[in-house]
């Protein structure tokens, strides 16, 4: 009986989406309902114990139906938001801000995970839905650098999604976006060159991506006018698109792989609290995903011995305050260096600690700056 509940746990996402849509429809202060409900669930999750249970797989198709519905409902939500803007539905600043922020955070926590889940799938329909769904993360090219570059080079500086020790999330934004765009172009070019096509050949993958993204933006404009297009685009860019990079920032922060291309469970952090597992479709249960990126979320088994960070929401919030994030992550990294790294990785970690100025992680004092008199002598 308890196992049968596994399927319905994942209805939490469509329920929050529905509440958000209802709140926007009601207008006024109800536009905050979506964000309040989402943050309330995540806050409550912070007091729950880690959940290492394995999902029931007897009727796995139910999971896929729920995830597909979540993607479609996310499309409906953003189009509905555009339509409401187009009809000047949000009469007050408070209601407009509430609708914008709720759409932004819900787009990140609820809209992005099923898109990521489905673009990793092997089945034609689900993968197609995941690819189209990349409109919801405002980047139809997110898949290619994620599946090829991130999964192949995880926990090395050649993965644009990776943050090295000492990197702040703000610096990470400036590094990761250009690196991802450059890599996307490189990979797309490689594909059309291999197939002997010109860059403008309509059969190239980028043409399909640009087309469906263009149709999506046109739909936002048709429903919400210029203001609708602008606000919806901003909510998707600053929500799912940018906050996904905060997730990436946290999830492999400072970890080190001496064997690029060959993932091992200690190359990722995990967040195994029960409600985050559900809302994020187990993506925070991260080791299994990297071990086999085609494995559906419901088949991922939490690694009870894997590296763990504090609760997900806390990590995301701390990331925006670098001194606090560093305070949280340094002891975890020190433990990782000591107990999980291979000898070769430990030596890289030692150099990375020195590079970040985190000499205390190497159990050594920081090098002293030369005194004025010494400099004068020199």
């Amino acid at each position, binding site marked *: 009986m308890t196992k049968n509940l596994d399927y319905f746990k994942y209805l939490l996402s469509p329920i929050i989406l529905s509440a958000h849509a209802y709140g926007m429809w009601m207008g006024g202060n109800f536009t905050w309902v979506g964000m309040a409900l989402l943050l309330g669930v995540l806050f409550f999750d912070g007091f729950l114990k880690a959940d290492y249970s394995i999902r029931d797989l007897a009727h796995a198709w139910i999971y896929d139906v729920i995830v597909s519905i979540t993607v479609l409902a996310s499309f409906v939500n953003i189009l509905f938001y555009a339509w409401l803007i187009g009809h000047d539905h949000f009469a007050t600043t408070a209601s407009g801000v509430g609708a914008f922020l709720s759409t932004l955070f819900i787009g990140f926590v609820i809209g992005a995970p099923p898109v990521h889940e489905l673009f990793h799938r092997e089945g034609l329909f689900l993968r197609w839905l995941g690819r189209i769904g990349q409109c919801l993360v405002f980047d139809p090219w997110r898949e290619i650098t994620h599946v090829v570059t991130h999964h192949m080079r995880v926990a090395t500086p050649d993965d644009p999604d990776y943050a090295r020790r000492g990197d702040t999330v703000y610096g990470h934004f400036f590094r990761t976006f250009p690196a991802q765009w450059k890599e996307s172009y490189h990979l797309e070019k490689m594909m059309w060159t*291999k197939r002997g096509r010109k860059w403008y050949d309509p059969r190239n993958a980028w043409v399909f991506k640009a087309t469906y993204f263009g149709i999506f933006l046109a739909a936002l404009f048709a429903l919400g006018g210029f203001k609708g297009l602008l606000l919806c685009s901003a909510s998707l860019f600053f929500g799912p698109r940018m906050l996904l990079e905060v997730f990436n920032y946290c999830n492999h922060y400072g970890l080190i792989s001496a064997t690029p291309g060959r993932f091992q469970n200690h190359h990722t952090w995990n967040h195994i609290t029960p409600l985050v597992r559900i809302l994020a479709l187990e993506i925070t249960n991260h080791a299994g995903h990297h071990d086999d990126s085609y494995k559906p979320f419901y088949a991922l088994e939490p690694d009870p011995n894997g590296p763990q960070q504090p609760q997900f929401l806390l990590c995301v919030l701390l990331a925006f305050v670098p001194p606090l994030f560093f305070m949280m992550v340094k002891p975890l990294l020190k433990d990782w260096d000591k107990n999980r790294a291979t000898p070769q990785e430990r030596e890289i970690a030692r150099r990375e600690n020195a590079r970040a100025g985190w000499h205390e992680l190497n159990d050594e004092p920081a090098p002293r700056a030369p005194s004025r008199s010494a400099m004068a002598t020199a």
Partner: protein
Amino acid sequence: MQVLEKNPAVETRAGHCRITVRGRDGSETSFEVKRNDMLLKAAVDQGIDYPHNCRVGVCGTCKTRLVDGRVSPMVDLALSPLSNEQIEAGFVLACQAKVRTDLVLDVKLGNGAQLPVRTVSALVTRWQRLPGDVIDLRLKLDDAVAFNAGQYCTIAESGSFTRRSYSYYDVPAADGSPAGEVGFLVKRLPGGRFSEWLFAEDRSGIKFWVEGPFGVMGVDDLDRDGLCVAGGTGLAPILSIVGDRLQRSETARFTIVFGVRSEKDLFADTHLAELQAKAGDRLRVIPILSHEPTGSSWAGLRGLVTAALTPALGIDYRDTAAFICGNLGMVEAVERRLIELGVQADRIHADKFVPSGTP
């Protein structure tokens, strides 16, 4: 440890898939891997001599035709070295293929057991600049490691993410005993993260990590004569293969065509002289220069290495084994030329350099 079974009718365990490899002579051999494991890794972990080199989807050595069954490629095959025609003909890269069902494969397995891959620490015992922006790098291994002629390993400076693959130029011991010291030829690539660091100063005494051995370049009949074509530091595995065969066969004869840009880039005189001293008249070395200034005193061949590959070389191309190592374009050009000259495709053994963009 070889686990190949000659009788593929053996029952497959739950959660496993049976991999059946069909030989061109109609023979079938099979082995078992866990469902969802990577095909190449699962095979190599069992000691199966599966053709492979880089293991990360770059070199294409593990290309395999999928006759029946289903695998999931980890990356779009258009991003692999497979040609569009090969992809459409059902070829996959074993190193990038997750096994989903029982498979029937068309691939030529080797006959020897794979040597275990190990990661060991090492210290630089020789850092010697050679002509042509090449460094002769020798490492003393903290634990001896066995390797076969023509194989390679990855090396990384202690504390660095950057790792690079290089072929051993040493000749493996005749009795198969592990080597306590190994050497590599490292070409400087302008802007290259590793080679620029290595060239910056004498790195003697620096600690490295060495992982290997990998690759299966040097497999063929021991007594068959060999034509070896090397571009630049692609000479390293050729030195190893020729040296190994000279000590294991009493009859095989070898021709090495060695291409560099100009006379001042001929970096391997010492290594080649040592090999020649052991081989006597069973070895001839033909250097060829691609960018030697017109009017210089060089009296040897000029042009790309393919220019040396003519009937005038006096080789029975139909009966020779070919070993080629160099950059991707050079190797592919040599392969095409050798096939024109009558070398059998399955007697051509190649190791293609691809400058690394990965750590």
